[in-house]
């Protein structure tokens, strides 16, 4: 709560906002260069493999966003502060965005690698269900008019949806055969050449910066518009 307000106050400084935008732009350019030009060719792969430098960060970012939805939803039900609801909303939007990007990059890669846009494979199917759950979350937010009702419904759905995710993942894993590669065993053993690891790390950083920037700007906007309407309400028209 207090942290959120502090963050908001920080974002009120134009310098902070510009700085963030600049930082993510620089990082993104670096990541593009490192992954598309600098990273070496992979053994037994065409250049399409370079999509991994976007595919993996977007996947991680969508997880992060969905976690934010969950945490903010729980916080909203607990405290009843609409501020948390706004966090959840922005999280949901970003999650759906990054999840779509992850699917899209994955599908493009898959078309080249497996010869099909899609396989009914656990990791892929889980991602698809995840997308549908959170697209449903946004749809739900969109059809409720009253803001408190909306906040409560969304919070309940956000919590249930998040609890469902690991179960979905587990269930689908049990149900189908695995085709999706697992390369990264751990932070130390990435299963890739050092250059690739660097490129991936920089890509991750760039997407994190992008995520933080978009999140902050979007969150600030939400709060400003909420403040405008509450000012309007107390002034009478």
């Amino acid at each position, binding site marked *: 709560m207090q942290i959120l307000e502090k963050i908001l106050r920080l974002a009120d400084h134009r310098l902070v906002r510009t700085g963030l935008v600049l930082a993510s732009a620089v990082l993104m350019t670096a990541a593009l260069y490192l992954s598309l030009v600098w990273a070496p060719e992979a053994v037994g792969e065409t250049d399409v493999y370079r999509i991994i430098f976007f595919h993996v960060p977007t996947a991680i970012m969508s997880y992060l966003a969905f976690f934010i939805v969950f945490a903010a939803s729980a916080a909203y*039900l607990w405290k009843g502060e609409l501020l948390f609801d706004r966090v959840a909303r922005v999280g949901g939007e970003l999650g759906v965005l990054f999840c779509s990007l992850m699917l899209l990059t994955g599908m493009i890669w898959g078309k080249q690698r497996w010869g099909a846009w899609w396989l009914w494979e656990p990791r892929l199917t889980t991602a698809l*269900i995840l997308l*549908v*759950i959170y697209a*449903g979350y946004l*749809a*739900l937010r969109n*059809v*409720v008019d*009253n803001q*408190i*009702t909306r906040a*409560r*419904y969304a*919070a*309940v*759905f956000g*919590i*249930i*949806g998040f*609890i*469902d995710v690991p*179960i*979905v993942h*587990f*269930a*689908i894993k*049990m*149900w189908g055969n695995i085709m999706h590669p697992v390369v990264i065993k751990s932070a130390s053993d990435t299963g890739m050449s050092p250059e690739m690891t660097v490129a991936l790390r920089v890509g991750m950083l760039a997407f994190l910066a992008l995520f933080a920037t978009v999140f902050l700007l979007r969150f600030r906007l939400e709060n400003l518009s909420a403040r405008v309407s509450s000012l309007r309400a107390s002034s009478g028209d």
Partner: protein
Amino acid sequence: MKNTLLSARAVLMKDLRTEWRTREFLGHTFMFALLVIVIFNFAFKINPQNAPGFASGILWISFLFAGTLGLGRSFLVEKENDCIQGLALSPVDRTAIFLAKFAGNLIFLLIIQVIVVPAFIVLYNVNVMENFFMQCLVFLLGDVGFMTLGTLIAAMSVNLKAREILLPVLLLPLLTPLLIFAASATASLVGGDDPSAYLGRIRLLAAFDVIFFVVSLLVFEYIMDEL
């Protein structure tokens, strides 16, 4: 607690009475269930050889559709003359309403199953109930999970504009794990696999039920407050 259960019973009795008055309710349900089976037959060209392989899928998809149909109804009766407002104004425990609607929906689905399953066995000549006790357990556990989440989402969507389509859109993705556990357990039981193949799934189903029943009870109040 006792009060909650008494109120839940009152709401449930009211619902059952109303449904019962919709004359021939059971008859319709029966025909509906039958039709779903027949439709699958034409769509997939099922024959005695491939029937066992299809059994579990056909059954669970029928349950899913029939159940969603029932869920849509369950809160809709409360919308007539805004009765839901009348309920919300009363001091009745919100949990009671959840429990009553949950029980009503569960009963509806159980009736469907009691009709569909024998009809399926007769029409396709596949005895899906060979392991009677276990199969019943799978159905029951599947139903409980389905109706727990279903009642919650139905309560949410009853006041929304795109109700009919939003209910399945919100509910079905949440139910995928349940469908996987249940359909594969039923399939193992039909295929006569050895217990290790289905016991694990039954345990998972039970876990799913417990988790979501508890969570639903905790959050239901927030939704009923907004009706």
